[in-house]
């Protein structure tokens, strides 16, 4: 029962976020896939926790003789150090997420990738780069406000300056004058990161169709950021969706092959992408 209610809620949220197909910086890793093996329970993290504890206990109780060349203390230290740094995310929607992950994999290989390849064949890299700059420029409000919310005044100021410089000297944002000529770089901040900055955790992991990996926190942030996204205010909705689809394809054109590499490297691609998402977002929040 609970699951049904949750699923309905999640579908509702999805309907809201479908207004815009915007991208993440992990553009190509965003789409999830499976090629090797099947995952296990929906309570992956629960099992992980249990396992962690069960392996920890005997170590503490019995001081077994060390089998390796390295001294035991050092070994323990390394393991502790590494274990401390391991980041986890709850995955109660595992079944939904895995389904979406299959969907996104097919979406990428059957639709997004061929469309993007055709698109790239028509538009040379320079043009696509300009288009990418243009889309980055119009989303300045999102970065500006979130830098402000995190009290990063200098970064907020830089975003404003970038908007002015790139809109004028960069010719309507098609060029990145501020970065190329004045070394003023973009400061990626979104509402999800702002929440994280103030200590709010992910909640749990969610994979959205097309949009890809997210979490409860980052999804709320994403929807919030849409209010600052100029494209959200374009009517009719079909036009807005069309623009966002173009944005997504254009962005993907720089990342063809990345997703394939990730699957190729992974022993369990679903877990690999989930972990990469959490680690990447953690870094973004810390920056």
């Amino acid at each position, binding site marked *: 029962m609970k699951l049904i209610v949750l699923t309905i809620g999640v579908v509702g949220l999805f309907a809201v976020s479908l207004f815009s197909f915007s991208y993440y910086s992990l553009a190509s890793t965003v789409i999830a896939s499976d090629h*090797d093996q099947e995952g296990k329970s929906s309570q992956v993290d629960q099992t992980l926790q249990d396992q962690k504890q069960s392996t920890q206990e005997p170590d503490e109780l019995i001081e077994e003789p060390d089998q390796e060349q390295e001294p035991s203390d050092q070994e323990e230290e390394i393991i502790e150090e590494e274990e401390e740094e391991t980041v986890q995310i709850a995955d109660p929607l595992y079944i939904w997420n895995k389904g979406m992950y299959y969907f996104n994999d097919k979406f990428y290989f059957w639709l997004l990738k061929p469309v993007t390849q055709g698109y790239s064949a028509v538009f040379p890299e320079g043009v696509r780069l300009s288009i990418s700059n243009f889309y980055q420029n119009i989303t300045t409000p999102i970065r500006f406000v979130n830098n402000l919310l995190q009290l990063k005044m200098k970064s907020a100021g830089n975003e404003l300056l970038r908007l002015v410089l790139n809109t004028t000297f960069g010719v309507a944002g098609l060029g990145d004058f501020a970065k190329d000529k004045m070394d003023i770089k973009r400061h990626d901040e979104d509402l999800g990161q702002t929440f994280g900055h103030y200590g709010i955790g992910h909640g749990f992991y969610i994979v959205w169709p097309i949009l890809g990996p997210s979490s409860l926190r980052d999804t709320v942030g994403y929807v919030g950021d849409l209010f600052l996204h100029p494209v959200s205010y374009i009517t009719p909705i079909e036009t807005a969706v069309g623009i966002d689809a173009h944005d997504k394809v254009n962005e993907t054109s720089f990342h063809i092959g990345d997703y394939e590499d990730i699957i190729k490297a992974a022993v369990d691609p679903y877990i690999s992408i989930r972990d990469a998402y959490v680690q990447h977002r953690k870094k973004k929040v810390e920056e």
Partner: protein
Amino acid sequence: MLLETSARTKKVKMRVENKSKGASMKKVLIGFHLIIFFILPLSLYAGVPQNTVEGHVNNVLNVLRDPAMKGDKAKKAKKEKVRAISEKMFDFNELSRRTLAMNWKNLNPDQQKEFIDLYKDILEDAYMDRIMSYSDEKVVFSKEIMLSDDTAEVQSNIITKKAEIPIYYRVILKDGNWRVYDVIIEGVSLIKNYRTQFRDILANKSPEELLKVLRKKVGKA
């Protein structure tokens, strides 16, 4: 930063020792000289991790850029050269142990040995093509941070037309050599990413079954 704190703890330790022994001013002076003596070699080391990693990376780039090596035949030779450099650059033993972390002890010595070999194959399969597809992007090394007395993080950026991709190398000092045990790309640590995957497998399966999965992955089943 870390250097400073370790120096500070040393100072504090020194002071405490001296006090407890009821040391004279002379002893304190000797203590300070010792501190300087200990700190100097440390500060001389700073820079060595970065130089080591940078050297290896430049060697790889030189192989890739070599104009004399083109075509399919040369590609194989190139791969061999890159492989040889990576053997020197990485500490696969350390990398494997840290990847499995808590689970490392659950493998017997034979399994550990096989694990290291299979893991190395997986990484090679995964990254060799990527390295070979390199097309003159600029690699810039920015700085190094000492994480402890014998570990450091060397930070670099790959600059493409589209963006800058931060790549950090974690290195460890063993037998006078700094070798890489982790690579962190855009905040995603290689060993942590694999740790999560292996842990998930080992949650319900034996180490032998994990090895079976890995053998299948590299086509050695």
